C-alpha cells in the first residue's frame, strides 16, 4: 500500500507576506509557509504533500509504460515573466514535458526549483505556480518534488525556474536526430515563430503592436497520437530557441543528409511575417514553444499528417520539405521567388538590421 496516497494536504503554513524577503529562503517557518501555501497547495499530490526531501517513484509503475527512462532538465529565465499566450510557468512545464515527449516518452513526473529575487510579489509567484499546475494537468504529469532559494535584490531577475522531468519511452520506439534518410518528409505541426514574435512585442522596445500570442503548449498528446499512427517516426525535436532552422541543421548534420524546404510551404501568420519584414528577422530562426519538427518516411507522411491534424496541437500540421542526399549536412531553402539559399545555424543572437 502506498502510504503517501493517504497523506492529506495539511495547510500548516499560511503565507501572509506580500513580497518575498530573505527569510523565505532561510529554512525556517517563513520558508515552510511559502512552500506549503504556494507550491504544495497548488501542485497538490501525495508525493509532494508528504514534504520529504525526495519523491519516491515505483519502478514497477514506471515499467508498465515502457522499457527506458527519459530524463531531462531545463532552466527558464524569460523576460518579461508574463506575455500573451503564457508565462514563465507555462514555459517551464511545457518545455520539459516537450523535451521528454520528443523521444516518444510519456512524461510522468517533474521537479520544480525556483530562484526568487528578494522583493518579488508573492502574487506573481502564485500566478506562475498556478500556470505550472494548469499545464501539468493538461500534460498529465505530477510535480512531485522541488526547491526554493531566495537571493538578494539584484542577484537574480525576479524569478528563475528550473524543471527536471522523467518519462518512460515505450518499447520499440527509437527516435533520433540521426535517422533522417533521403526521401523522408519534413513535417511541422503549425504556424512558426509565434513565441519569438510575442516575446519581442511584449518587451515593448519596438513600439510594434500585433495580435500574436505565444504558442506555448505541451506536445506529449500530439506525439502519442503520431506514434499511434506511425511507431517508426525517424526524427522528432521541438523547435524552441534557434527555431526550425536550427533543428533542421541538427538533423542534417546528425544524419549526414541534405534537407530541402520550400519557403511557400512554411506556415506563418501575417503578423509574424510583418514583424520579421520590419525588423529584418528570419522567422525560421524565431523561437517556438509548442512546435515540433518531425521526419518520417514518405510512405508514412500522409498517415502521420492525418493523425496530427485530428489533434488540437497539430491542427495546422503541414509538410514543409524533404530529406535529400546532398548537400550533406546542409539545409537549403527554395525561395518563393524561385531561387535557393542555404539556411545555416545562427552565429549569435539574431540582431535587427540597421537599414
Amino acid at each position, binding site marked *: 500500500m502506498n502510504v503517501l496516497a493517504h497523506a492529506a494536504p495539511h495547510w500548516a503554513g499560511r503565507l501572509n507576506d506580500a513580497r518575498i524577503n530573505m527569510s523565505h529562503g532561510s529554512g525556517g517557518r517563513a520558508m515552510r509557509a511559502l512552500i506549503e501555501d504556494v507550491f504544495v497547495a497548488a501542485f497538490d499530490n501525495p508525493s509532494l504533500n508528504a514534504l520529504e526531501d525526495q519523491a519516491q517513484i515505483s519502478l514497477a509503475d514506471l515499467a508498465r509504460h515502457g522499457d527506458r527512462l527519459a530524463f531531462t532538465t531545463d532552466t527558464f529565465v524569460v523576460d518579461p515573466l508574463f506575455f500573451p499566450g503564457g508565462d514563465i510557468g507555462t514555459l517551464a512545464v511545457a518545455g520539459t514535458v516537450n523535451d521528454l515527449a520528443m523521444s516518444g516518452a510519456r512524461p510522468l513526473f517533474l521537479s520544480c526549483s525556483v530562484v526568487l529575487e528578494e522583493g518579488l510579489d508573492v502574487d506573481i509567484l502564485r500566478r506562475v505556480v498556478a500556470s505550472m499546475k494548469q499545464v501539468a494537468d493538461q500534460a498529465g504529469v505530477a510535480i512531485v518534488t522541488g526547491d526554493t532559494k531566495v537571493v538578494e535584490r539584484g542577484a537574480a531577475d525576479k524569478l528563475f525556474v528550473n524543471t527536471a522531468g522523467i518519462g518512460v519511452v515505450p518499447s520499440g520506439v527509437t527516435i533520433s536526430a540521426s535517422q533522417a534518410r533521403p526521401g523522408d518528409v519534413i513535417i511541422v505541426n503549425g504556424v512558426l515563430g509565434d513565441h519569438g514574435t510575442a516575446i519581442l512585442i511584449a518587451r515593448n*522596445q519596438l513600439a510594434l503592436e500585433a495580435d500574436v500570442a505565444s504558442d506555448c503548449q505541451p506536445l506529449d498528446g500530439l506525439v502519442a497520437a503520431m506514434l499511434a499512427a506511425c511507431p517508426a517516426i525517424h526524427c522528432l525535436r521541438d523547435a524552441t530557441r534557434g527555431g526550425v532552422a536550427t533543428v533542421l541543421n541538427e538533423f542534417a548534420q546528425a544524419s549526414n543528409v541534405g534537407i530541402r524546404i520550400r519557403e511557400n510551404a512554411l506556415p506563418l501568420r501575417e503578423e509574424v*511575417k510583418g514583424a520579421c519584414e520590419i525588423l529584418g528577422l528570419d522567422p525560421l530562426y524565431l523561437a517556438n514553444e509548442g512546435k515540433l519538427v518531425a521526419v518520417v518516411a514518405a510512405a508514412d507522411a500522409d498517415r502521420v499528417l492525418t493523425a496530427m491534424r485530428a489533434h488540437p496541437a497539430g491542427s495546422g500540421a503541414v509538410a514543409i520539405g524533404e530529406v535529400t542526399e546532398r*548537400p550533406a549536412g546542409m539545409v537549403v531553402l527554395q*525561395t518563393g*521567388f524561385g*531561387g*535557393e*539559399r542555404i539556411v545555416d545555424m545562427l552565429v549569435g543572437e539574431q540582431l535587427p538590421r*540597421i*537599414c
Partner: protein
Amino acid sequence: MKYIDEFRDPVKAQALLGEIRGLTATISRTRTQPLQIMEVCGGHTHSIFRYGIQQMLPDELEFVHGPGCPVCVLPMGRVDDCVALAERPDVIFSTFGDAMRVPGSRKSLLKAKADGADVRMVYSPLDALTIARKHPEREVIFFGLGFETTMPSTALTVIEARRQGIRNFSLFCNHITIVPTIKAILDSPDLRLDGFLGPGHVSMVIGTTIYEFVARHYHKPITIAGFEPLDVLHALWMVLKQIAEGRCEVENQYGRVVPAGGNPRALAAINEVYELREFFEWRGLGSIDHSGVRLRENYAEYDAERKFGVPNIRIADPKACQCGEVLKGVIKPRQCKVFGAACTPETPLGSLMVSSEGACAAYYNYGRINAAEPLADVDVDA
C-alpha cells in the same frame, strides 16, 4: 502579405529573367569578360542572397557587392573608439543591433558589454534620447552610423535634444556619404564594372540627379533600385537595356519611394546639423576625401568626439584581409585568402563577414548551395 507579395511574384520574375537572359546574350557576343554590375547597397546584397537571385542569372552576368553596408566599411579603429567610450563608467553607450558584433582590435561592443560596459541596443536614436532623459546623471552616447538613410534621424534627434534642453546626450558621428565613395570606386585603376544598381533608401533622401556624374563623366549606366527581388531584377534589366542600347543614364526603378529631388526636409535636417569632414577612413577602401560628416560647430555640445576626447585610434586592416578588393569587385568573396578559413561569421577578420548585409557573410550564409566541396579550398588563388 499585401504590398510585399506583389514584389516577390515568381511568374513575373521568370518573364524578367527571360528578358535579362536575352539582353545578356546580345551584349556578351562582343565581349570576353562577364558583365559586372555593382549593387552599391548592402540591402540589395541581402536581397540577392536571400532570394537566391544570383543563381537565376546567366553565367555571363555577375553582381559585384558594393560598399553600401555601413557596418562593413567601419574601420577597426572606430570600433575601438566606441569601446573606449562605452567603457567610461559614466557612459551609457547606445547603438543599433548589428554594430554590436563588429570586431575592434581589442573587442567588439558585445564583448565590452559582457565585460561590464553599459551598452544598450536601441531601434531608433530617439530611444537613446529617452534613455538620456531617464538617466540625467549619466552621459548617453548614441553611435550614429550609416549613409544618408540614417543621417536625417540622428540629425533630428540632435535637434530634438537641443529643443528639450537635454544636455547629457551626444552623438558619436560615424555617418558616411555615398557619392564620394562611388567616385572613389570609379577612379580605382583596377575597375571593371559595367554599370550600377544605385542605392534605394539613400536616394530617397538625396534624390537621383546627384548621380549624373556617373553617367556623364564615367560613362556608366546607373539605375536606382528598390529592395524587393522583383525590384532588383527589374533594375538589372533596365541597366542591361542601357548597355545594350549604348546609353549611359541615371534611371529610377524605385519611383514609388525615390523622388528625383530627394526629401527636402531630410536634407535640411542633415544640412543643419552636419558638415563634411575633409576625409574619412573606410575599412578596406582606405581614406576617402569628403566621405564622412561631423557635427557642425553650432552643435559641438552634442558631439561625443568633442565632448569626451575620443582617442581616435587608427588601426590598419588585418593584412590577410582582402575586403577592399572584394568591395571594388576585383575578387569574389570566395577568392579571398582567408574566406571561410580564418574568417568566418563566428570569428570575422574582415567586416564584410560581420553584418548579414556584408558580401562575405551573405556568401557564407546563403551562397554555398553547390558547396559539396569544402569552403576553404575553392579557387583561393584565382
